[in-house]
């Protein structure tokens, strides 16, 4: 039953069963409207989950938008510098929304952000100056990486989980025309995808 406006009561007006049912129908109707694009097709956990199971990604919580149109998560990194090598947790996330929990420095200008719970995913990234002005750079190159085994795969057989690879390049100099080279910068990224 569709929404119908209800009325408050006075001391002399009874609340009959039809009126009560209508309020219940209004509530069910609003719930259905919200379910269309807010967590309807995903696990209806309300802060708890079946014992023994891994917690679902945060976007599967009740009320989260579950649209491909909406980013699954965002993150902003600090300017990362060299670490011991791939696999070392960079601790370089300055701020993050749901779904993105780590950013690994792979090599100069190359980063990796693991992604869970999405069968297909993409990323939109933006590099930014950490200070000063006159910053010029081509936009970050983001690739969707499938999981690779430890042997016979990329990364010299090290293996990697699924996630986004981000590559950042040097500033292009106004009027100079030099080649791009990989370079470390802080960046921001939005993750899109489908479960």
């Amino acid at each position, binding site marked *: 039953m569709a929404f119908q406006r*209800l009325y*408050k*009561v006075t*001391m002399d007006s009874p*609340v009959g*069963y039809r009126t009560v*049912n209508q*309020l*219940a129908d*209004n*509530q*069910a109707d609003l*719930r259905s*409207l*919200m379910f*269309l694009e*807010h*967590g309807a097709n*995903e696990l*209806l956990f*309300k802060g708890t989950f079946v014992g023994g199971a891994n917690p679902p990604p945060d976007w599967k919580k*009740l*009320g*989260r*938008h579950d*649209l491909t*149109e*909406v*980013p699954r*998560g*965002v*993150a*902003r990194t600090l300017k990362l510098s060299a670490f011991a090598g791939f696999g070392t947790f960079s601790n370089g996330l300055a*701020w993050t*929304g*749901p779904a993105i929990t780590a950013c690994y420095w792979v090599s100069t200008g190359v980063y990796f952000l693991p992604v869970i719970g999405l069968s*297909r995913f993409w990323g*939109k990234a*933006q*590099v*930014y*100056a950490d200070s000063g*002005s*006159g*910053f*010029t*750079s*081509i936009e970050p*190159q983001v690739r*969707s990486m499938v999981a690779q085994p430890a042997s016979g795969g990329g990364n010299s057989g090290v293996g990697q989980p699924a996630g986004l690879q981000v*590559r950042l390049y040097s500033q292009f100099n*106004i*009027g100079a*025309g*030099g*080649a*791009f080279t990989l370079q470390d910068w802080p960046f921001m*990224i*939005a993750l*899109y995808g489908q479960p």
Partner: protein
Amino acid sequence: MGIDTFPPWVTKVRKDPLGFSSFNRLINRFRWTEDLFAKEHLLADYGSAKAGDHNAAEIPREVGSCYVTGGPTNNAEGFRYATVAYPWSSTGFIQMAFDSSVYSSVDQMVLLTQNCSEAGINKPCVTNIEDIGPTGAAFSSFQLTDALGGGNTWDVDDGHFCLAIHSAPLPTGAAATSASAKDKGDFVSDRADDWGAMVQNDADLRRKFITDGVGDSHDSTGFHLAREVAQTWADVYWDGVVYRVRDTSTRNACNTATQLGTGHVQLAFNSDWVLPAQPFVMVNGSSYWGYGAANDIWNCVTPRSLILTAPATIDLYLYRYVSASNWWVREDADFFLTVYSSF
């Protein structure tokens, strides 16, 4: 498996009593729905933001466009909490000021741009973020000045761009004061915290869902009508001969992707999509023809004049940097895009 915890309701029939447990169940149903809504929406006004606004890090606080008109003059459209800080001062430079009541921590922001320069019809173009400061951000746009196949020299450009601004969620606001729960022997009255409160809360929550204090945020069927939620998306790939739409939104679907020239593709959408548009494109060039080289560099421009046409179409121009030659070519590639609309 998930559990649906929405309190069920057994339809009352004539002579059924409205007992205290039924009354309290109606209260719980309201609370459940309000909790769902509060997950990613404001329940109350906060600063300049209104009750009903989307309120999550992954949903842009706002999406708009910045563009340059004759004069020249810097302009912005579609923003609620960001404004052009200064008039045009130098080619390609624009500074935006942020409403501090909504953007209280510039460190907890993500800004994303999509270049929409008219020069993108012929050359790659890019918009950079120069600085994010306490009160706003500065942007600079550039275009390649060498001919395609000629070099990698760039210069400033009074280009247009789309901008999405993500920020930390604001305090949600207080939940509605619910009706007072009833015990055995209680009866319904005309007190403000009784049946009247339940009716009022029901209407208020519906109002917050349908409108966000500025305009509609969801339509009567539950679909988003807000500027900050994209109206469509498409996953498009180049098979070597034609472009194909691998997948797209169920609403405002991308019907066709037509190659109009090498690296120039036009997307056509359902005509009920509201213009003008703010597209954001993610190029996935590495999936085409085994371009697995880690040093592929791509650029995509969606010229402003070609995203404001009706019926709803968007033109993309794709460019690839040839590292061995240090120049650019226009080339076809796979991509994913989302498109926002102004309402």
